C-alpha cells in the first residue's frame, strides 16, 4: 500500500563508453498492481485480527501459552512487552519452518537441507534425520568457491597444520601473521588501490570502522536501503545521518546542497566533512548503484564516498572486480572501498581498501585492532587461493571462466523469469534476483513447494522488506549448470501457476514450455 513505485528504465547510452559491459544499464521496479496491494493488506489485517483473538484466548487461559516462560516473572519488569512480540507470536511462527533451515553439507551449488517436521504448528521442531538434496538458490556463493575439495580447501587444510586455528591475540599485539600481510597486499593489487586491511567479520567491518572515519560534526548521507551494518556503524559514529531515496541522484544532490548551505542543525556551523555511503549491489532489490553519477556529484560538492561492495565484489564486472570494474571508473575516485569475503570467496571476513594514509589511520583507530582476535589461518588461505584463481595467478583461466559463467547464468535465468510473467526487480546483470510475491501466506507456500521440487530458495518478508513487498530472492552461482537452472525455472513455473505469482502487467504470462527454448539456449551457448 505504499506509494506505487514507478518503473525506471534508465538509458545510459551516452555513458556506454565508460561501461565495460556493452549492455545498457537496465533496471526495473514494476509497480505493485492495485488489487494485489489491497489483498495483501487485507491478508495482514485478517492475520492481525486472528492474532488478537488468539492472544485474548491465551490470556484468559482457554488456549495454552506455547512460548517459553520467564524464569523471573514475579515483580521483575518483563523482558519484552507482549505487543513487541505480537508479530513473532502470531505471524512469524506460522511460517517459521521456512526460515533458519539447517543444512548438512557444504553450501555449494547443491545442498542437503535437513528435513524438519513440527507437530504443534511450528512451535517446536523435530529432525526426521532425512536429508533433502536440493539446488541451492539461497546461499551467497556467486563464484562457486564454496567447495569442500579443490585447491582452495587444500590450502586451507595445509594452513591449519602450519598455523593452528587462531593466534589468540589482537592485531595490535601479537596477531599479525605473515599471511595477513600477504592477503592485504593481494587484495590491494586486485582492487588496484594502494593498501588494504582485512577483518574477521563483514558486519563488524562496517560497524567498527565507520566510527573511525566519521564523528561529531560530520554528516553521513546514506541510501535508504542500506544494510543494517552500515546504519549501525553510522549511528555509533555520532555523526548526523540523513537518508536519500534509493539510487535517486537528484535527491542526493538536493540533500548535499541543502546540507552545505544550511550547515549543522541549530548551530549552522559548516559541516566538518560529508560522507556518502552506498552499496554496490543491494541485496534485497538487486539494483546496482549509479556509480559514475555519484562520483560526479561527490567531486562537485567535495564529499567523500564509501562504497560497500559486499555483494558485488567478484560477482559484477568483466574481471570480477566489482562495481568499479563494471562502470570502468577510476578506483581512486572512491575514497573508501569496503567489501566482504563471505559471498564471492567462500570464506568469512571483510576488508577496507583505499589510499595508504586512510588505511594507516584505520589500522590505528579501528575498534577491532585492539579488541578482536585476528583472522583465522584457514579462512585467510581460502581467500588467498580464491583470489589467485580469480586473478589468474595460478596459471589457469578458471577464474575468468567462473566470472563468465556467472554472467551467463544470471542473464539466462532473469530473461526467462521475466518472459514468464513474474515481476522481477533489479538490474539485468545483478546475480541477486528478487521475484515479488507480495502476500504473506505465499511466502511460506513458495518456499515449501520449491523445496518439494528440489530447490532451496530464500523467501523474505517483513521486517527485511516492506510489509507488502515480500519476495523470493534467488542467488545465482557460477557453480549452477544449465540443467540446474532449467530445473529451477521449471519448478518456479509450476509453483507460479499453483500459487498465482504471475503479477506482471508489462510482460505476458507464459508457461515455461511456451517459451521459445531455442533462443535462450543459443544465447547461453554463445555467452
Amino acid at each position, binding site marked *: 500500500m505504499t506509494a506505487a513505485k514507478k518503473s525506471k528504465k534508465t538509458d545510459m547510452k551516452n555513458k556506454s563508453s565508460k561501461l565495460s559491459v556493452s549492455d545498457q544499464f537496465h533496471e526495473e521496479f514494476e509497480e505493485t498492481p492495485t488489487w494485489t496491494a489491497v489483498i495483501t493488506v487485507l491478508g495482514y489485517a485478517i492475520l492481525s485480527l486472528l492474532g488478537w483473538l488468539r492472544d485474548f484466548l491465551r490470556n484468559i487461559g482457554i488456549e495454552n501459552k506455547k512460548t517459553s516462560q520467564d524464569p523471573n516473572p514475579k515483580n521483575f519488569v518483563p523482558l519484552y512487552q507482549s505487543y513487541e512480540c505480537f508479530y513473532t507470536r502470531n505471524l512469524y511462527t506460522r511460517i517459521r519452518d521456512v526460515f533458519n533451515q539447517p543444512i548438512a553439507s557444504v*553450501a555449494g551449488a547443491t545442498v542437503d537441507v535437513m528435513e524438519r517436521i513440527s507437530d504443534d504448528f511450528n512451535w517446536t521442531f523435530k529432525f526426521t534425520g532425512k536429508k533433502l538434496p536440493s539446488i541451492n538458490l539461497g546461499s551467497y556463493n556467486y563464484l562457486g568457491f564454496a567447495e569442500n575439495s579443490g585447491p582452495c580447501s587444500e590450502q586451507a587444510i595445509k594452513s591449519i597444520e602450519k598455523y593452528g586455528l*587462531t593466534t589468540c591475540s589482537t592485531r*595490535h599485539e601479537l596477531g599479525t601473521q605473515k599471511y595477513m600481510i600477504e592477503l592485504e597486499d593481494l587484495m590491494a593489487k586486485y582492487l588496484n588501490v594502494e593498501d588494504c586491511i582485512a577483518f574477521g567479520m563483514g558486519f*563488524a567491518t562496517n560497524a567498527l570502522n565507520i566510527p573511525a572515519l566519521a564523528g561529531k560534526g560530520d554528516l553521513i548521507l546514506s541510501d535508504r536501503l542500506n544494510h543494517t551494518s552500515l546504519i549501525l556503524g553510522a549511528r*555509533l559514529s555520532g555523526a548526523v545521518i540523513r537518508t536519500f531515496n534509493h539510487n535517486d541522484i537528484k535527491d542526493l544532490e538536493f540533500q548535499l546542497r541543502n546540507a552545505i548551505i544550511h550547515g549543522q542543525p541549530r548551530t549552522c556551523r559548516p559541516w566538518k566533512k560529508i560522507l556518502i555511503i552506498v552499496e554496490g549491489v543491494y541485496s534485497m532489490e538487486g539494483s546496482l548503484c549509479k556509480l559514475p553519477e555519484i562520483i560526479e556529484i561527490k567531486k562537485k560538492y567535495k564529499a567523500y564516498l564509501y562504497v560497500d561492495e559486499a555483494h558485488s565484489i567478484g560477482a559484477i564486472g568483466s574481471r570480477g572486480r566489482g562495481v568499479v570494474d563494471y562502470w570502468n571508473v577510476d578506483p581512486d575516485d572512491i575514497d*573508501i572501498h569496503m567489501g566482504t569475503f563471505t559471498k564471492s570467496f567462500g570464506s568469512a571476513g571483510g576488508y577496507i581498501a583505499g589510499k595508504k594514509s586512510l588505511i594507516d589511520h584505520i589500522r590505528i583507530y579501528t575498534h577491532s585492532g585492539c579488541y578482536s582476535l585476528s583472522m583465522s589461518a584457514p579462512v585467510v588461505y581460502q581467500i588467498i587461493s580464491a583470489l589467485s584463481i580469480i586473478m589468474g595467478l595460478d596459471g589457469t583461466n578458471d577464474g575468468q571462466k567462473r566470472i563468465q559463467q556467472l554472467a551467463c547464468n544470471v542473464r539466462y535465468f532473469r530473461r526467462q523469469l521475466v518472459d514468464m510473467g513474474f515481476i522481477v526487480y533489479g538490474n539485468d546483470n545483478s546475480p541477486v534476483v528478487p521475484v515479488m510475491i507480495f502476500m504473506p501466506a505465499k511466502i511460506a507456500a513458495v518456499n515449501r513447494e520449491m523445496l518439494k521440487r528440489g530447490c532451496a530458495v530464500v523467501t523474505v518478508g517483513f521486517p527485511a522488506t516492506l510489509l507488502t513487498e515480500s519476495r523470493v530472492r534467488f542467488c545465482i552461482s557460477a557453480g549452477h549448470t544449465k540443467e540446474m537452472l532449467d530445473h529451477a525455472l521449471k519448478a518456479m513455473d509450476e509453483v507460479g501457476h499453483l500459487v498465482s505469482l504471475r503479477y506482471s502487467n508489462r510482460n505476458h504470462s507464459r508457461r515455461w514450455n511456451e517459451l521459445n527454448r531455442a533462443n535462450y539456449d543459443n544465447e547461453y551457448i554463445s555467452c
Partner: protein
Amino acid sequence: MGSSMARGDIENLATDFFGLFESFKHAPFYHIIIEVSLLLAVVWLLFFRKPRPIEKKLTEKEKQELIDEWQPEPLVPPVDSNHPALNVRVLDGIVGKTVEIDGRKSLNFATFNFLNFVGNQRIADKAIQAVQKYGVGSCGPRGFYGTIDIHLELEERLAKFFSCEEGIIYSYGFSTIASIIPAYSKRNDILFVDEGVHYAIQKGVEASRSHVKWFRHNDINDLERLLAEQDVLDKKNPKKARTIRRFLIIEGLYVNYGDICPLPRMVELKYKYKYRIFIDESVSFGTIGQTGRGITEYYEYSIGSIGGFAVGSSFVVDHQRLSAQGYCFSASLPPLLAAAAIEALNIMEEDHTLLFETIMAKSKRLHKKLLSIKGYIINGDEISALKHLRLTNSLNTVGRLEEIVQFAQSRDITITVARYLTDEHHLPEPSIRLILNVEMTDEELEFLCTVLQEALVKVTA
C-alpha cells in the same frame, strides 16, 4: 431641545442595548460560541502574537557561493608513522606456548591461550575434517541456509556444559556482546555498568541508547548507592517504573584489571532491586572453573577458536534469534571453527578437574612469585590466569613498559603492553598484560620472574 434629543438618544441607546441583550437570550447557542471565539481570537491577535521575523531567502548566487566556499576536512588526519599499531611484530608460525619472532623462539606470555589449545592436534584434526565436509565459509546468514548442523550441535553442547536451556553462537567475539545488549535494552531502560568493562561492552551500551549508570570498578557499595537512588525515583513514579527494564552488566574476570566480580552479592542485590544480570565471561570461561558460569557469556580465548556465544534460559536466548543484529544480519560462524570449539569442549569435559585445578594452582604460584619482585604492582586476583603488571606510580609510563617488553624479548620471553583505544570510557593505567598458559612449567615461570626483575633494574636505573 438638545437635552430632550439627548434623552431620546439615551433612551434609544438603552432600548438598543436591551434589544441586544434580549437577542442574546434568543440566539442559538452555537452562534454565541462562535462570536465569543472570534472575540478571543481578535484579542489574541492584537496582544499576544509575537511578531514573526520575515526570513530573507538566500539567492541562488549566495547559495552557490556557500557551496563553493565550503572546504571539508581531510578524510583522515595525518598519522604518526611511529605508532605501535603500524610497527607490529610479524609472526609466521603457530602462536602457542612458544612463538617464533625473527627466527628466535620465545616463551609466550602474551596471547590469550590459557588452556594451550592453539596447535592442539585433536582440535586441528577435527577442523580439517570439517573443511573436508563443509568447505571453509558458510555462505549465508543463519536465516538463509547458513545454519549448519554443526552450529546446532555446538549450541546444544554449550547449553549442556553450562547447565542452561539454550545457547546461541555468533561469528565474532566483539559483536557478540555488542549485539546482545541492544537486543534487550532499549531507549528507556537503565543499565548499571561497571567502569572497568572492556570496549566491546562499552560499544554495546552505546548502541543500545539506554540510560547508563557507571559504578566504580568492583565497588559493590557504589552500585548499591546507585540502585538505592534509582529505587527512590521509582517510588515517585511507580507506573513508569514498571516499564523500565534494568540490567547489570559485569564481567566474570575483567580483562582490563584481572580481578573477579563479587557475584554472590550482586545476585542478592538482583532479587532485592529486581534487575537482570549479564555477565561477560570472556576470560573466566575455562580458567576459573567453578565460579562465573553466568547468564550471558562470550568466549574467544581459552577455547582455541574464534567466535562468541551466549547461554541462558530459552525465554531469554530465543529473543536474540530475531533481534540481535550481529546474529541476524551476518554470515554464520565458519563450520571449521565450530568443529574446533566442539572438540575443545570435549577435551574440557574429559579432563574436567585436572586442567582447571592446574591452571588455578599455577596462577596462584605465579602470583606469589610476582609479588616477591619489589617494584612491580600486580593487579589481578590470585587465581586469575590474567594479570596486569605495573610499575610504581610515576614510573608507570608506556615508554618504560615497552622497554621492559623489548628487554624480555631479547631474553626470549614474549610479553606485551595492553593496548587500548584512546576513547575508552575509563582508560585503564598502562600495564603489561601477563597471561598464563596452563602448560608452563615452574622453571619457566621462575625464568619469567628473573627476566622481569632484570628488566626492572635496567629500566629504573
